[in-house]
């Protein structure tokens, strides 16, 4: 990481892979130093020179740091430019920033990994970590919900993981046509059917905030403690250092204290319209 955390380092795009209609994964070089270690759940600030800068979660394997993966959905001026980058193009990079998933706190417990839509991207490094250190964790249950079968992110990997005997993968979509053989319904509705011990479970949840609220309700109804539910919050992060206050969430700076926060820290704030 650069000595000045506000100055982006120019790095090159090594590969670009289309994931969904408007979503691409960029593989970037780590920067001049060659290695940029990160924790599952952290994010980088990616800067398109002359356009702007956005926070993008790291979506690759933290076990290898020679390249950095970011999965980007083209929804605005910066992300559209990011998604259009080609190999050997240059992008500005600051990071990694923030607090990641509770990989150590979750050791010995059953893990409920609940992702909605693009929320699977910030959770993928956690999944890689768990699979690399599988013996450290109890049951691993991955719940994934998205809009339709065409919107399933990392579909190939989900299929691979579902074939493993030590991972339980449940996928559901909001709507589907007649050719979808899987489940239809919202992801929180998968929770009551799970047979797990809520007192021995740690939940990691990432997705649109409404999906996370409904999921938290389902987890709490199932008996999971607030302290054992972790959410990755998405807020308008600008400086990523806790200075500017753009991402302030009550007394919490999402960029510095999060983006992963336990539910007991954000309980009263999740459903507020403004704060």
């Amino acid at each position, binding site marked *: 990481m650069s000595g000045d955390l506000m100055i982006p380092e120019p790095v090159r795009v090594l590969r670009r892979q289309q994931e969904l209609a*408007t979503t691409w994964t960029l593989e970037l070089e780590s920067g001049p130093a060659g290695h940029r270690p990160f924790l599952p759940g952290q994010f980088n600030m990616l800067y398109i020179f002359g356009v*702007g800068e*956005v926070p993008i979660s790291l979506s690759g394997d933290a076990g290898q740091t020679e390249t950095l993966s970011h999965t980007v*959905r083209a*929804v*605005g*001026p*910066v*992300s559209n430019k990011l998604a259009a980058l080609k190999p050997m193009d240059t992008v500005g990079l600051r990071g990694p920033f923030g607090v990641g998933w509770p990989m150590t706190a979750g050791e010995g417990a059953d893990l409920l990994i609940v992702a*909605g*839509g*693009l929320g699977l991207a910030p959770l993928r490094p956690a999944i890689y970590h768990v699979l690399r250190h599988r013996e450290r964790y109890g049951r691993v249950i991955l719940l994934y919900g*998205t*809009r339709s079968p065409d*919107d399933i992110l990392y579909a190939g990997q989900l299929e691979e993981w579902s074939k493993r005997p030590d991972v339980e993968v449940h996928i559901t979509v*909001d*709507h*589907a*046509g*007649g050719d*979808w*053989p*899987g*489940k*239809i*319904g*919202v992801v*929180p*509705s998968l929770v*009551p*059917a799970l047979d797990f011990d809520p007192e021995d479970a740690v939940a990691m949840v990432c*997705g*649109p905030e*409404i*999906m996370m609220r*409904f999921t938290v309700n389902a987890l709490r109804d199932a008996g999971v403690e607030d302290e054992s539910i972790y959410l990755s919050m998405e807020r*308008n992060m600008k400086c990523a250092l806790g200075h500017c206050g753009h991402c302030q969430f009550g007394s919490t700076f999402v960029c510095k204290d999060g983006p992963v926060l336990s539910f007991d820290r954000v309980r009263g704030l999740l459903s507020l319209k403004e704060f």
Partner: protein
Amino acid sequence: MKNIAQIVCEHPFFHGLDGEFCDLVCGCARNVRFNPGDYLFHEGGDADYLYLIRYGQVTLEIAVPGKPSVRFQTLHDGDLVGVSWVLPPYHWAYDARAITLTRAIAMDARCLRKKCDDDPVLGYDVLKRVLPILTSRLHATQMQILDVYGAPEQPE
């Protein structure tokens, strides 16, 4: 081999029901089987039966003129198919179709409603079992209508 009373009372929907009530509701029940593609009921039809899935998968869907039906929920082992039998005028609001071989308990809704009317304690118990299903489907519908996985509107 289990008799119908055991099958009904061990189904998650009726699990824990008082034994006397269980005998009472079993009088409305029979085993049914649906092959893949068979419809359990159609939108607008009379909600004369409710179905408790023992094994299989059922999809709920809405027909769209000129287009394939939109499927909005799948139900599985242990689930209740259909709630319109509780609410007058007892008409189904969507289609239900088996997508795998499905074995279920079909309960005569008129019979069950009459027994619930005759014994309000049973009626209240049954209603308490239906209400959580109704509310969870309402919440699911809210999420689906909100299209939460659509592109965020917030500027970058």
